[in-house]
């Protein structure tokens, strides 16, 4: 074990033990580790943004390209300036321009991706699941595919019904009733079962990932101690 490995291994060992000390409740060592983590992350992020984004994509082109080409960089430069000026209370309104630009662009990209990357392909997949050619694609147990397709359809419809928030309209009295239509109530009850199973699976996955992280940390601690006791072997 080299000196560098010993030092950084020791730091990692101490920080791991400090985080695990939360087992006995919130304490100084746990808070110290948490603050250290937050502070280091923030500092690293600032350096990363300056070094990997601002410098290569803004400062270098401004310095090396012609002024006609660099003119395009005036737009992000202006947006940055407005965002910085918004920190002054009297000029807080200026920050809404870059934020509006950012939110609008994000929404446009995200909505486009959601529609063409999730909604349409998933609906098409659900429709294709009822293609008889798909059922008999595999030679054995075609009924299993039929059941699988039916379950997918029921799951999709009932889950969407659970998130339906319409109200009943009583035509004869021309008034809205607070409760949903009866059929939607029944479908949403079934949808709750599918949502529960999905969330259960996600919960189990979170547990599994956390458990693996803990196993990795224990293995690291034992390896470090074994390395110290074994004289760096």
């Amino acid at each position: 074990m080299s000196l560098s490995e010993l030092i950084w291994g020791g730091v990692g060992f101490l920080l791991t033990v400090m985080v695990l000390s939360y087992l006995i409740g919130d304490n100084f060592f746990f808070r110290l580790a948490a603050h250290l983590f937050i502070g280091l992350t923030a500092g690293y992020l600032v350096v990363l943004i300056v070094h990997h984004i601002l410098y290569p994509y803004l400062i270098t082109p401004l310095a090396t390209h012609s002024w006609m080409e660099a003119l395009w960089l005036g737009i992000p430069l202006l947006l940055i300036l407005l965002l910085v000026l918004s920190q002054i209370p009297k000029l807080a309104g200026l920050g809404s321009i870059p934020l509006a630009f950012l939110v609008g662009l994000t929404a446009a990209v995200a909505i486009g991706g959601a529609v063409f990357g999730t909604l349409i392909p998933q609906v098409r997949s659900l429709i294709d699941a009822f293609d008889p050619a798909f059922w008999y694609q595999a030679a054995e147990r075609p009924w299993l595919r039929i059941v699988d397709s039916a379950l997918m359809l029921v799951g999709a419809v009932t889950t969407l019904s659970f998130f339906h928030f319409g109200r009943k309209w009583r035509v004869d009295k021309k008034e809205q009733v607070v409760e949903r239509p009866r059929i939607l109530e029944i479908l949403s009850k079934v949808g709750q079962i599918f949502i529960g199973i999905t969330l259960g699976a996600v919960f189990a996955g979170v547990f599994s990932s956390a458990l693996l992280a803990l196993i990795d940390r224990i293995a690291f601690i034992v390896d470090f101690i074994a390395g110290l006791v074994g004289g760096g072997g």
Partner: protein
Amino acid sequence: MIVICPECGAENSLTAEVCQECGASLLGVIPSPSSEPLEPEGDDLDLFAQDDPDLPDLLNALKQYEEVSDDGGEEQEPTPDSPKESVKNPLDFNAGEDEDSIPEWLKRIRKRAHEEKDAIGEITRKINTAQERLESEKNGNKRKQYESYLQRLRGQKRGIEEQLGEHHESSKDDLDWLSKIKKAEGKHSDTYQEDQPSIDERQGDSLLQWLVAVENGDEAPEPLSEMEEEFVERHRGETLPTRISSQEPDLESTQPMSRDELEFKPPELSISSEEQAQADQLAATIVDERASRPDRQPKRAPLKWVMRLVLGLILIAGLSFPLFIGGAPTLPQGLLQPQNEALLYWAREVPAETSLLLVFDYSAGYASEIALVARPILKEAIKQGSAITLVSSTPSGSLLAKRLFGELDASAAYKVTDYGYFPVAAYGAYGMASGGFSEDALLDVPEMGKPLPSDGFDGVLILSDSFEGAQVWIEQISSLMPEIPLNLVVTAQAGPMLLPYWESGQVNGMVSGLSEAAGVERALSDGESVATRWRSYQTGLLILIAVLVIGAIFNTDTRGADRRRGEE
């Protein structure tokens, strides 16, 4: 309505053309309303109902009362709300009258009288003489009235004291609230007066207890505080309450009260049945508040602390022993899923000198899990002369990529181009999927960063620890570059939500979590990284399930206990 003579001020009837006193012409004189004094509105002399019932106000109210009595003949008591103008002497020139309400003729007369002493007419002299006489008579009457009023007050006070004294002696035990408070003090009512502490010794005593002391008649007035002393010194001779000097002939003359006179005089106590009921309730509350209660020690807090520590140590021990004792187990069969097989097939079939895009979308906490899953896949996929492009949508992505490639130990030579960190994953995914900056960019925009492969990518591999992070990349790449095979290497927590993308064909293949990684490792027969952790992983899952079940049982019991406590 009357007509007032502009020359002498005499009152004449409305029809008179000349003054009946001086004979002056009354033509053109505007009639005035009758000068009869207004009746006071109130019937009772409610002196103590005033906001600030100090002695000067009391005397003023009494003065008004007497003036009304003098004018009206019949004794009527003014209320605090009755206007002062209603009892004002009409002959008093110096009274604070409203200038607008004074008739023009009267102003002229007054002005003339002030400017020319000799010009005072006979009537004016008579008025002044009558006024002086009236003042002296009134002073005498006022003194008599004050004296009789004070005598009446003293008589009432003596009567109340006698009644209270008789009541106190005859029915001393009937004062329940008094005896309760005395009992709360730990003394019997009979012996209460003997060893009663002074008011200074009893810290936190309530107003009720002070009233009790006053009722017993043995409580000395409380000395003035420093602030009160300051106030008295500052306002001495200015606005302090004044007293009536009985030696002075002029009853309205006042002089400041001395400090001794300012000392607090305990009020006389008369308690109605309603007040006594309230006092009884207050006394019961005081007794209840001062009653000693057993100290409740929080018993569950240390238990929770110990339980947490014990369970944590059991979990760590349970994970540690399988990790280092008994060697690596053989991985079970049947762990490989269809989506895993699809990914393995793609990794094996990737040709040499291909261009791969690797997206690092996981944080350092999940690095070990991603490394366990991704390492065998990358070893299969990276061939001789591969061009690998790295993109990170987490700040630590570049560092984690370096670590992963450092552990890869691939024998083939390959080229890595790191595009670094994309702060907004959606923009990064959109930019990458739409061809990057170099191809579709506007002509005059400077080329930013490194150019993307001109022929596009032969495959994309997303390494992610969250559903949302992977979803952004899947949506953009599958919609903008549907022909490029997209593969996922994700953690167990992201896997279940991403599976529909494999079902729909948007994702070519995927591996998630340790169990699927175990299947891949077994299929590839490559290393024991997963196998060494497999038994520990299973033990940990067993412990977690047991803790969840036990916790659910205890939690249900706690809820039941809380409900029962609430019902009680």
